[in-house]
């Protein structure tokens, strides 16, 4: 697949939040403020690219030659936890300013299903290394785009007064549905 198309598809038409529903828990709970949403989104993009690449290497170099594919889930989640921990230490030590802006989200990311989901999709679709890097980075950017947009839209909710029985999660779901319609509208350009 053309690398540019792959990148476009992973950001827009196959957006992991809006078409694959990955990372929904933080998407609903953390999207109240734009700056917080952006911090979470950047952390997700970074961790996603690193973990998917690392998992690709582990999958092709260790698991497949040894016939241990059934341990995939366990190995992937351990890799993710390890990388998140290392990243947290490194950023805290060398980039304290960055740490203040999104470091607090790093521990939450281990259990973000989008991170594990991308590694699983990469195996299911048998991507090569370059494709994996592009796909995971694009998906991270797509998630960032979706959560920032959601943050912006939710900030304006105070003016529109939706039914109180919706509660925050209900109205977030409806907004996400409308956003998903917009993102899917580009499917004719490129899809996965």
């Amino acid at each position, binding site marked *: 697949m053309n690398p540019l198309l792959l990148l476009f598809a992973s950001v827009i038409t196959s957006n992991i939040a*809006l078409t694959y529903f990955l990372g929904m*828990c933080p998407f609903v*709970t953390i999207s109240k403020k734009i700056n917080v949403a952006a911090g979470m989104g950047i952390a997700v993009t970074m961790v996603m690219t690193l973990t998917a690449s690392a998992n690709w290497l582990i999958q092709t170099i260790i698991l497949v030659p040894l016939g241990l594919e059934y341990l995939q*889930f366990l190995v992937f989640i351990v890799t993710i936890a390890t990388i998140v921990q290392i990243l947290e230490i490194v950023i805290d030590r060398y980039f304290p300013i960055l740490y203040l802006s999104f470091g607090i989200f790093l521990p939450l990311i281990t*259990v973000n299903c989008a991170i594990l*989901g991308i590694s699983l999709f990469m195996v299911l679709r048998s991507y090569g290394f370059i494709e994996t890097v592009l796909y995971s980075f694009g998906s991270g950017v797509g998630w960032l785009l979706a959560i920032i947009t959601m943050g912006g839209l939710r900030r304006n909710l105070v003016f529109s007064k939706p039914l109180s029985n*919706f509660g925050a999660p*209900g109205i977030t779901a409806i907004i996400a*549905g409308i956003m*998903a319609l917009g993102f899917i509208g580009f499917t004719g350009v490129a899809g996965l």
Partner: protein
Amino acid sequence: MGDSMNQGSVNLKVPQKGYKLLKTKSWMVFKEGVWHNNPIFGMMLGLCSTLAVTNLVSNALVMSAAVTLVLVVNSAIISSLRNLIPERVRMIAYMLIISSLVITVDLILKIVLPEASKALGPYVALIITNCILMGRAEAYAINNSVGLSVADALGVGLGYTFSLTLISIFRELIGFGSILGFTLLPDELPRIALFTIPPGAFFALGTFILIINMIRNRGSKS
């Protein structure tokens, strides 16, 4: 809640055996899990799988069974080991136990129901990061006896099943005009294909949250 207020009078009417069952703590914990702590509509946990697998009732049922099974076994294991797991590493312990259980369930599904396993794709594996499991382990199983933890897990599992079944019946009926593959609506009725694609999942979830909240709030007012 309406039924908790007139519980005394209701309980007197049920036969002796049932009376005992409905009074036990396990039953209360179980009931709490199904309705009040309902993972989808009450706690908003595990939304990824809810949205992704509710396009067909069959997918929703297989997924619910898988989640409930993992939930119950996981709670049983963690509550029986609760005095042995050191507090500092308890998260990693949960993660390892859950991953091993999910690998088992995934292998079983691949052998017993290969088609369903294919349709669910990566979402079975994503049970590992489903917040419901971590949530129940951390909030309940780590501090309570095995019996109560299993009752709690069964309740929450049933609440999850109930929510998924409800949403999937709605989506499959309106989107494909069928339930479990059997066509129910006459062919003349147009199908609303919106509910078979991802945006429809969000709309269906939002609508159900609205309806459930309306029922809840009416109960608390009376």
